[in-house]
């Protein structure tokens, strides 16, 4: 394509960053809570995975500015990330660490 104007992105303000930091802290407290409080142990793994995924996404989208930046960066990061997750899952199956009723 011809001369492309640099991708414009809006900067979240300090207030947004602080709010996200607060959310991250709360999520961490929740994670530790799930770990310690016995009533949650039945759903420990999915709950922790979801909570940490939310933290992960918040940091990547906002602190690393991915949400506001070029969609191509999402591909550059998301592609290999997805690949890494698939590889990890495949290895877990291949080593019998998780099974389909094996």
């Amino acid at each position, binding site marked *: 394509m011809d001369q492309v104007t640099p991708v414009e992105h809006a900067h979240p303000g300090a207030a947004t960053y602080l709010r996200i930091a607060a959310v991250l802290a709360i999520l961490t407290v929740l994670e530790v809570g799930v770990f310690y409080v016995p009533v949650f142990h039945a759903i420990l793994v999915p709950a922790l995975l979801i909570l940490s995924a939310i933290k992960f996404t918040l940091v990547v989208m906002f602190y690393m500015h991915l949400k506001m930046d070029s969609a191509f960066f999402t591909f550059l990061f998301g592609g290999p990330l997805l690949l890494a997750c698939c590889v990890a899952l495949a290895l877990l199956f*291949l080593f019998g660490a998780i099974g389909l009723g094996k």
Partner: protein
Amino acid sequence: MSAVHAPAAPATGWKSWITTTDHKRIGMLYFFTAFGFFLIGGIEALMIRLQLAQPDGRLVSADTYNQLFTMHGTTMVFLALMPLSAAFFNYIIPLQIGARDVAFPRLNAFSYWVFLLGGLFINASWFAGPLFHAGHLNVAPNGGWFGYANLTERQYSPGPNIDFWLLGLQVLGIASLAAGFNFIVTILNMRAPGMRMMRLPVFSWMTLVTQFLVITAFPVITVALVLLMFDRFFGTHFYLPAAGGDPLLWQHLFWLFGHPEVYILILPAMGIISEVLPTFARKPLFGYTVVVYSGVLIGFMGWGVWSHHMFSVGLGPIADSVFSGTTMLIAVPTGVKIFNWIATLWGGQIRGTTALHFAVGFIAMFVIGGLSGVMHASPPADLQQTDTYFVVAHIHYVLFGGTILGLFAGTYYWWPKMTGRLLSETLGKWHFWLIIIGMNLAFFPMHFIGLLGMPRRIYTYSRDLGPGIATLNLVSTVGAFLIAVALLVFIWNLWRTRTHGQPAGDDPWGGATLEWTIPSPPPPYNFDFIPTVVSRLPRWSTTQMRAIPEGSPEESLPHVPSGSIWPLVTALGLPVLACAPLTHTLWLAFVGAGLLFFGIYRWAFEPFEV
């Protein structure tokens, strides 16, 4: 508007070469260094073939033989084929996309120096025996190019051989990764105005896919090697069953890298012939879009097949079936490309240049290699084929018949652009016929040798191993030497045309892409004016060769960076660092790390404008 400028004379002298950041110079450095390693790998192959020419061979000891086939494989994959492809990435990609250089010229130089130093490091093992009180001269890596655990553990490989291997490969991995990032950004971000992605030459596209494979696959082998390093140096048990470890972890990690690696090896060559065939058929590539998408699909699917290298380890029926299925599927996009290439030639105005001969040879030989590959895809069949010479046949048909013939096609095609001189067509035809006969003599018998039962990686065999095995081995050895003769012809061609070669001019072939619009060899800044591209084949129109519309003129003289020493200094830190565990000398690690840091800091704060 046209600026008056004196063509900048490239600096000469060794200092200009060690500080160069010019992609064209770096490309030439890659070419000659890689070709040198190719010859070394070839000599290793000849020694293997001499040892196997007859039963009960006594040319080399078993241990030396193990070193020979390990180094042959390692050298050919990492020090010859990948860097030869890199030579063309370096020289040609910026020219094809209409750029003045790559995105990060100093990083580019760094990649080359790390490659050179890594290659020297690993080959130093041939002479390093005395340093390790080994009792003999050669302590080269001897665990196969794929280094299966736990043979590679300290217990079973006590000497420095595997250390050279795992340290050397980690160093080389850094070179490849750096180049991967560099070329991804270059191809995506430095295209000339108007060069949309679907107007990109196929060679550039295949290079892009290759670099994505590099940056995702090399970290995995890095981890595999680091874990092995920890086992060997720090007493961990990653691959040791006694502590609960699993040797299969190595195999999975290695082949997770290793399978994408073979696509890293073949895709550039496929890109090359996708340029050569249209030029000498005077006809656009048939189904450009399909060829590009097939290449991208091969890149993605290449991640889904790795355990087909492990059909004999007992993965279980589910895993075997899944990987068998994915492996058969990946033959589809590959096959599609073959049809497109043939269709490109069909009905074209064929000019039988040497480059075209090699490109057609690629198609034929790669199809044979692909057929044996598909045969491997069936686990029951593979149980017979695996670890026999049948696989060696497959490997060499795809890598020699594929990659190497493709690289030669690229050499005959682009040498005139790089040096300003045409290679001799007569010598080229001799080279081609000798090598294609040689390679078929060398590798075709291996299909039979393998199915008759000769395993891989054995240093000799008995006359009773199987009917005709000895004879076929002898034929194979003759073929190998014929290849050597062909290479001598090629070297003579290179040498002679330095002075006697016909001057090439800008465009000896009537090519369609941007590299043919500039002088041969190009000036340091490549293009007087960055062109504006309006089609996929910028120079071909229906009636005549099309002049490229001039882009907006830039400064009076395009700026060319003056080079930098810091890539080399930084690169030096790596082999020094690698020598520390190798020789159990801690202070070397500090020196190496110190060099790295020093080089990086000077590099980061050096004023350098691209």
